[in-house]
């Protein structure tokens, strides 16, 4: 039983979020309108509680694939960004017709039509899924936690707006998601077939001794399937439609939560290999994926007339940048590679950039969500045209966040890109192809500036259209402000986060341990053991 207790010890934050989701679901159906309005507060409370438990609660002592610091880092990042996302989304349920009418007393409260509780419950479930992904030590666990991330988001997209477009995008999202799940599940079965284990630590030790092509193919398929979560080529097709169709707070949610889960899952899968893939098919897969993702994202971003679609393609492009850091891999063991400090550690760069990108893009989406045009959310470039004259504060946040996405020097995105591309350069000794990838990435950054500057141009130099009116959602403004300030302040003084990311990413690759010894006492017949 100690094994079970030990496994439970690591997941108290997730259990808290699960309980919180149940409470939210019940509160959303309460009789009194004032009680129902408490749901978002309760969700925030449970989110903070799970953050406290992640730091101060019992820590898992064994059975982790990722180092415990990295698990803690990702959990805290999920809590911190989750709070910002909750601020963005807090007033969203009030904008739905049925909920609104029930709250204003126009219609009697009908439990069947009001989705407030479900929205926040799914919100918490999805965050719990990301946390569970970090503690995954079994293929089945990894699969279930990735699904726990995605399944709630399908419903969140479908119910996020009272428009048919939201449902259309949810259907697209769901079916393409199911396809992606099939692909990575096929990969998982091949990994199991090649090694005979679903337990990841045993897969790791089995992979250290035999080089099975089935294992390679399994990991390749798994990565391709997971590229749906991170919105990378070849599974990026849904991104623009879904980001545009969902309500802006849900879009911001999609830009951070599944992406983080996906990258954590890919890090877990790649650490199954005897060493980080710097050569061979998996390296080339990631190389091509990174180059294509960046290029497709940025080129398509140039062609858009909708700000939300532009930001969606920007999300694809940033997945490409993140893949560059992922490919560079953990810090070099020898100091001769030129990798000193955080630069040179691709995993640390990915962990850092996930937060940096999240804050920048959530800020931009929050600003969009604060503006209303003809009774619906701002979407096209015309909608935000001349934003600076009416709402100088919102326009300033948009300016800062978008410049951070471009990667201009004092801001958060700049530091993130330096670490991503710098770590790839530091690893050029292992494979010269990394240099070309960095060249592609830098060229892409330059191209991306064009459409980012179009957003700023529309905000500051466009003719104000008289149709825009502010949305009544104070917490969304606070979230936008928090993102704007964080992007500037952490860009100037973000060393703490960089240090955290670096400390958290001492990846335990089996090549640093002694792989041969582990295998001898683990026979393939012992599948049901442990």
């Amino acid at each position, binding site marked *: *039983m100690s094994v079970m207790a030990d496994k439970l010890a690591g997941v108290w934050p997730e259990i808290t979020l699960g309980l919180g989701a*149940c409470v939210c*679901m*019940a509160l959303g*159906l309460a009789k009194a309108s004032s009680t129902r309005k408490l749901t978002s507060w309760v969700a925030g409370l449970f989110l903070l509680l799970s953050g406290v438990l992640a730091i101060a609660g019992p820590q898992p002592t064994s059975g982790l694939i990722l180092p415990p610091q990295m698990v803690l880092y990702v959990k805290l990042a999920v809590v911190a960004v989750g709070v910002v996302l909750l601020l963005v989304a807090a007033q969203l349920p009030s904008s739905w017709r049925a909920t609104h009418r029930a709250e204003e007393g126009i219609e009697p409260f*009908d*439990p*069947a039509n009001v989705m407030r509780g479900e929205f926040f419950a799914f919100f918490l479930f999805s965050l719990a899924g990301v946390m569970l992904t970090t503690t995954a030590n079994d293929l089945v666990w990894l699969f279930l936690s990735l699904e726990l991330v995605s399944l709630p988001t399908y419903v969140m997209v479908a119910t996020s707006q009272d428009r048919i477009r939201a449902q259309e995008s949810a259907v697209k999202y769901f079916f393409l998601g199911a396809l992606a799940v099939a692909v990575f599940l096929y990969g998982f079965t091949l990994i199991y*077939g*090649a090694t*005979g284990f679903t337990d990841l630590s045993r897969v790791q030790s089995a992979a250290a001794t*035999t080089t*099975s*092509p*089935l294992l390679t*193919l399994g990991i390749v398929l798994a990565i391709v399937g997971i590229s749906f979560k991170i919105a990378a080529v070849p599974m990026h097709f849904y991104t623009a439609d879904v980001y545009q169709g969902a309500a802006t707070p849900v879009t911001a949610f999609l830009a951070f939560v599944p992406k983080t889960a996906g990258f954590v899952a890919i890090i877990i899968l790649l650490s199954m290999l005897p060493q980080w893939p710097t050569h061979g098919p998996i390296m080339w897969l990631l190389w091509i994926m990174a180059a294509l993702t960046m290029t497709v994202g940025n080129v398509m971003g140039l062609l858009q007339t909708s700000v939300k679609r532009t930001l969606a393609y920007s999300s694809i492009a940033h997945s490409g940048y993140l893949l560059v850091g992922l490919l560079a891999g953990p810090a070099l063991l020898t100091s001769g590679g030129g990798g000193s400090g955080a630069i040179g550690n691709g995993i640390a760069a990915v962990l850092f950039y996930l937060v940096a990108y999240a804050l920048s893009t959530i800020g931009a989406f929050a600003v969009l969500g604060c503006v209303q045009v003809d009774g619906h959310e701002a979407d096209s470039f015309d909608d935000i045209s001349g934003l600076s004259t009416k709402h100088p504060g919102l326009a300033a946040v948009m300016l800062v966040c978008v410049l951070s996405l471009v990667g201009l020097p004092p801001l958060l995105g700049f530091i993130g890109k330096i670490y991503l591309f710098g770590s790839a350069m530091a690893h050029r000794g292992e494979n010269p192809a990394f240099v070309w990838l960095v060249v592609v990435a830098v060229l892409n950054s330059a191209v991306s500036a064009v459409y980012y500057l179009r957003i700023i141009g529309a905000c500051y130099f466009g003719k104000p259209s008289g149709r825009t009116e502010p949305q009544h959602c104070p917490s969304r403004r606070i979230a936008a402000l928090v993102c704007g300030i964080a992007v500037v302040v952490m860009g100037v003084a973000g060393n703490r986060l960089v240090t955290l990311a670096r400390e958290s990413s001492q990846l335990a690759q089996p090549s640093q341990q002694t792989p041969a010894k582990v295998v001898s006492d683990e026979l*393939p017949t012992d599948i049901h053991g442990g």
Partner: protein
Amino acid sequence: MILMLPVLAEASFNQFAVVGVLLLIAIVFGVGNLVISKLMGPSREGPIKGLVYESGMNPITPARRRFNVRFYVVAMTFLVFDVEIVFLYPWATTFPSLAQDSPLNVLFLGRMLFFVLTTVIAFLYAWRKGVFRYD
């Protein structure tokens, strides 16, 4: 033993031959079945053969009939309890085999009661949501 197949194959084939064989089997199986049924199956045509259901069932109404979506919700609620039984059954068979004075008894019972409680919550939620109300 089946799990060792890749290793055996690797010894004699090239690196990715296993994958090739797998793909080949998949293709041959799919195409082969189509070809065999085309060759061996009797092909009869006629008005009865052209009916909607090959099993011989008579189609009663057009397919575009409206029906109550609530059916699905009830079916899904049923699934919740169905899955619960799947977990309850193995527990029920192993629970009596625990020693009488074992401290694990209470723990095991408590866990299962907690699990049942989660289902009760789901049931109450569905009730409040009006799933069981037919009007």
